């Protein structure tokens, strides 16, 4: 089919359509002049015309959204189909939340209702994670009038809710039949109110209470169904957290563009787009009562808009109600929720014949321990906390950032613990400084846009609070500025050069800030000319002085010195009004991230918060005597960082906020030897380690899980069929997969027992994981399995000898033995294909370099050792990998180039000069290579866009004491 021929077809098609159907055939005969093929083509297209009328008439965007909403056709199930222990019997109906089926639970031999959740929900991993947590609470609801939730089952991308099967007419059916006698209604109301009060007491709000959700069984029991399910259908917790104001979103009809709940039973506050609380259930209860008693709908109109308008404006006709219930229903249908009835438990008290307006309302029920897990309850806890210390339990909850935070965007808690400030990109694409009130959860941006130019890899530099929690100091272009959080323009304080990587503000209004080009400076918070406090010392190979944090005396401060010499990197103590040459140059604490000093409520001894390889540690510190006290304690795991900036912040009164490191997404990409991209694998994800199977058909990757960013799991990617399967199901980190020599199993590290151990699991046959290695080291990760299947190389890390190479013999009793253990860091051990040599990375020279050493049996029976080593890399190297035939060694140079070295391993080891293949992309993640050495799998950073939530912990020090 050439374009020209096709154009002829098109013209004929058009012309044919201009003739009426009966004439078409004749016209075509004439026009095609005997060319039967041409005629056939046109007629075939004409034949599809009718069918095509409805085709693609709906824009693609809507089509996809609808498909999502309906959960696609792929969930049509036949009766008789089995889902694990359940046998599907018959469909019961489809509601807004997915299809419902009657099924038999073969384990417990009872019938249940299975609700298939549309893939739209299951795809939204954040929502699903929230729901899973919520489902536990819901499953614990046990009351004769509450429809039970038995559980949540998942398989093959299908998620089902297993619910109590309740059969009988709904209240909607009852209303349709007409007005009911008062006594009957009151009996129903009593049971419904029991259910609602029970759930409310346990912190569960229904949010979608309506007659269709309430059934009456054969024996007259009233059951309220779907408690708490509507909650996780909501949009973000705070509808006002989206700062971009669009007409659709502020339209009173929709909350975030969505109608949550059924309009006819929606409370006025819900209709206005405010978040619903228990009082919305009370309102709905009132509407239901009214409708049961009158047999007619109260607010329902022809259209949703009209219905909601009625909810907001119409006053019910109270005369239609019997006298005895009028007061109760009036109290429920109070449009101002502050004046509405709050507690159905005392419902019967309101059934008096002479209501008195001055009646005292029942006291609000107390929050239970379960409730504190919900953000709303946490607010209450915070409110209490502000006034006096809570009981000594730490309370933890999560907050989403508004907008999108790029990897490394800073955040900080105010010293009084009431606000969380953070930088994020709003939906208009501009980076702003936001302040979130932790009590009201209100969020606002401080200025129109962050007045800072793009610096330092497009990451916003860290900012800092004033001690009175009223101002924030930050970098605005080439100046240091401060801005009040209650509004107003920013005030410029002084000029700066380079990037201000952190600052600290003491009670005498002196600010210490880090200028990454020179060192730390001090300046008055009122503005002025800064004086140099510290100067970066290149003789000590220092790279930066950053992230200062004042100590209680307001004169001394902690800060980080970053140096390419590890001995010099860490936390130092500085002082105001002291010349750079006179500053203390004794390292206080070894770390690579900026420290945060947290004073304690009782004098003197505070804590230094710092990161150690992604774990947040607290080191007790005597601020008066400038001494460390004892060992540091773990506070939280998987806390992220960007170079030296750790994603954590603390207030002065026991509030801690941190974010995990799931920020950086990578696209796994194949490069050839020239550095050209020749393919990609899977979609972008937060991968951190990977290994190709020996036959190169599979890739085992460790990645943070979409549903819980603090959690890493191993996945298997089938490179031929383009599928991905989850391999580990830990609740904790599972990383660094390594394939066995025969490609049948995978070794990985997992923290499920609190410490990292190595586990083995079959890659093809489903089965359990075997614990393979319980190491005494703090951290272990497997690096390589010898081709002859006899050994596993792994790296162990501990305080004294740092990283070391270890060997696990696989045949005998599997007793691990250290292969290279020095005070330096040795890692990334890789066997040569013939098994006689080991390539590894060591920093004994002062920086990472690649070495190759002979691997042989030692004189002592059953032990092995490394022979003399040869230095392979020049000028720095890491991540060594052998080519499949052992004749080439690859590694990554210090400048990010991929290097190749030709080697001979016949009897003696010989290596040629390293050759540069190509430059790896900035921020790359090292992956794996093909056996023939022609293709390299590298993680290329994907576009930023991170909505990892903050974890906020109140009373965090008490959690430490509890250990």
């Amino acid at each position, binding site marked *: *089919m050439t374009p020209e021929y*096709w154009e002829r077809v*098109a013209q004929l*098609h*058009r012309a044919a*359509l201009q003739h009426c159907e009966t004439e078409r055939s004749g016209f075509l005969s004439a026009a095609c002049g005997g060319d039967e093929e041409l005629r056939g083509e046109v007629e075939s*297209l*004409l034949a*599809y*015309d009718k069918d*095509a009328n409805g*085709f*693609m008439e709906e*824009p*693609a*965007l809507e089509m*996809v*959204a609808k*498909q*999502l*909403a309906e959960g*696609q*056709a*792929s*969930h*049509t*199930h036949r009766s*008789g*189909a*089995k*889902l*694990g*222990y359940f046998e599907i019997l018959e469909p019961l109906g489809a509601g*807004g939340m997915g299809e419902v089926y009657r099924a038999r639970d073969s384990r417990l031999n009872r019938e249940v209702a299975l609700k298939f959740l549309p*893939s*739209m929900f299951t*795809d*939204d991993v954040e929502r699903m994670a929230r729901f899973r947590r919520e489902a536990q609470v819901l499953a614990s609801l046990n009351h004769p009038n509450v429809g039970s939730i038995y559980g949540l089952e*998942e*398989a*093959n*991308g*299908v998620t089902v809710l297993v619910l109590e099967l309740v059969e009988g007419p709904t209240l909607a059916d009852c209303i349709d039949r007409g007005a009911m006698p008062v006594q009957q209604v009151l009996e129903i109301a009593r049971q419904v109110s029991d259910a609602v009060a029970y759930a409310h007491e346990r912190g569960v709000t229904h949010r979608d209470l309506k007659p269709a959700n309430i059934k009456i069984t054969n024996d007259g029991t009233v059951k309220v169904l779907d408690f708490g399910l509507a909650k996780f259908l909501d949009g973000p917790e705070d509808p006002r957290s989206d700062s971009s104001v669009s007409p*659709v979103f502020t339209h009173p009809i*929709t909350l*975030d*563009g969505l*109608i949550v709940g*059924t309009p006819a039973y929606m409370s006025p506050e819900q209709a206005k787009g405010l978040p619903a609380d228990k009082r919305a259930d009370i309102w709905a209860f009132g509407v239901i009562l009214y409708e049961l008693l009158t047999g007619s709908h109260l607010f329902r109109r*022809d*259209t*949703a*808009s*009209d219905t909601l308008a009625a909810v907001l404006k119409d006053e019910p006709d109270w005369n239609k109600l019997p006298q005895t219930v009028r007061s109760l229903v009036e109290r429920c249908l109070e449009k101002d929720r502050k004046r509405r009835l709050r507690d159905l438990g005392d419902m019967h008290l309101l059934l008096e014949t002479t209501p008195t307006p001055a009646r005292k309302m029942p006291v609000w029920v107390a929050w239970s321990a379960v409730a504190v897990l919900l953000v709303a309850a946490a607010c209450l806890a915070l409110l209490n906390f502000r006034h006096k210390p809570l009981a000594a339990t730490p309370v933890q909850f999560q907050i989403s950032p508004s907008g999108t935070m790029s990897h490394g965007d800073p955040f900080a808690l105010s010293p009084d613990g009431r606000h969380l400030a953070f930088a994020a990109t709003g939906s208009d*694409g501009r980076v702003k400084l936001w302040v979130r009130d932790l009590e009201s959860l209100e969020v606002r941006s401080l200025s129109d846009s962050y007045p800072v130019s793009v610096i330092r890899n497009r990451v916003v530099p860290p900012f800092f609070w004033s001690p009175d929690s009223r101002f924030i100091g930050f970098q605005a272009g080439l100046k240091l500025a401060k801005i009040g959080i209650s509004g107003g323009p920013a005030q410029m304080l002084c000029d700066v050069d380079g990037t201000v990587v952190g600052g600290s503000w003491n009670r005498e209004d002196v600010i210490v800030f880090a200028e990454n080009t020179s060192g730390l400076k001090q300046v008055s918070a009122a503005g002025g000319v800064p004086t140099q406090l510290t100067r970066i010392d290149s003789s000590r190979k220092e790279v930066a002085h950053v992230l200062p944090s004042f100590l209680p005396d307001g004169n001394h401060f902690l800060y980080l010195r970053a140096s390419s010499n590890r001995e010099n990197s860490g936390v130092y103590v500085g002082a105001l009004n002291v010349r750079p040459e006179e500053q203390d140059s004794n390292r206080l604490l070894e770390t690579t991230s900026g420290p945060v000093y947290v004073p304690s409520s009782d004098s003197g001894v505070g804590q230094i918060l710092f990161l150690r390889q992604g774990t947040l540690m607290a080191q007790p510190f005597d601020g008066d005597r400038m001494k460390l006290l004892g060992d540091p304690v773990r506070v939280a795991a998987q806390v992220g960082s960007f170079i030296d900036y750790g994603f954590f912040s603390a207030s002065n009164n026991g509030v801690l906020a941190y974010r995990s490191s799931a920020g950086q997404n990578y696209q796994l990409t194949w490069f050839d030897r020239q550095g050209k991209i020749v393919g990609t694998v899977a979609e972008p994800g937060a991968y951190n380690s990977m290994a190709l199977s020996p036959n190169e058909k599979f890739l085992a990757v460790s990645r943070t899980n979409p549903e819980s960013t603090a959690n890493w799991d191993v996945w298997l990617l*089938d490179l031929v069929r383009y599928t*991905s*399967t989850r391999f580990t199901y830990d609740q904790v980190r599972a990383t660094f997969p390594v394939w066995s020599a025969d490609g049948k199993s995978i070794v990985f590290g997992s923290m499920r027992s609190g410490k990292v151990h190595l586990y083995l699991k079959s890659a093809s046959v*489903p089965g359990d994981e075997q614990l393979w290695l319980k190491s005494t080291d703090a951290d272990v990760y497997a690096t390589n399995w010898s081709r002859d299947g006899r050994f596993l190389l792994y790296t162990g890390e501990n305080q004294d000898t740092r990283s070391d190479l270890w060997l696990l013999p696989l045949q005998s009793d599997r007793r691990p033995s250290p292969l290279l253990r020095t005070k330096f860091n040795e890692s990334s051990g890789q066997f040569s294909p013939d098994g006689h040599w080991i390539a590894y990375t060591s920093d004994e020279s002062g920086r990472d370099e690649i070495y190759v050493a002979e691997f042989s049996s030692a004189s002592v029976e059953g032990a092995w050792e490394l022979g003399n080593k040869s230095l392979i890399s020049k000028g720095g190297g890491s991540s060594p990998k052998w080519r499949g035939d052992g004749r080439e060694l690859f590694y990554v140079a210090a400048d990010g180039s991929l290097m190749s070295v030709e080697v001979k391993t016949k009897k003696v080891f010989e290596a040629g000069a390293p050759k540069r293949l190509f430059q790896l992309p900035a921020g790359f993640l090292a992956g794996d290579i093909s056996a023939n050495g022609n293709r390299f799998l590298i993680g290329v950073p994907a576009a930023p*866009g991170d909505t990892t939530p903050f974890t906020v912990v109140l009373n965090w020090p008490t959690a430490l004491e509890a250990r």
Partner: protein
Amino acid sequence: MPLVYKELHRLARHYMFRESPGHTLQTSALVNEAYLRLVDAKNVNFKNRAHFFGVSAQLMRQILVDFARSRRSQKRGGDAQVISLEGALMVSPAPRSDLVALDDALKTLASIDPRRSRVVELRFFGGLSVEESAEVLRVSPETVMHDWKLAKAWLLRDLSVAKGKGNDA
């Protein structure tokens, strides 16, 4: 991808909860909103209105097809997990609603008829009306109407034939 999910889910929730037909106004407002957010027009330099629509439609196509493709690969899920689904009838999407197949077919059409495939892109992916498309392509609305009819017929035929041959893996 997260932005796409967010916007599509916003829209999808709307469809899930529609109670009465009186929602069409909100629907189109929502769709426009989602469209603008997804396309993120502010970041691209547009020469004129036609250019804008042309680029947006392309972007939208890319976004939606990528999305559909990623979900499709997820659905062909791997090994048995905790519970297995036996004997259930899993129906793959009909050719008419299979965006990935449609995109492939459209690419084939483009190789012999770029303009008509453009019409489909503008109207189906970009949501443009006949008049708007005519303005972008600089042809008469009648031409657009016919282009649209012809393209639809061709695509439908191509998709039906492909399905019949059991092309869907």
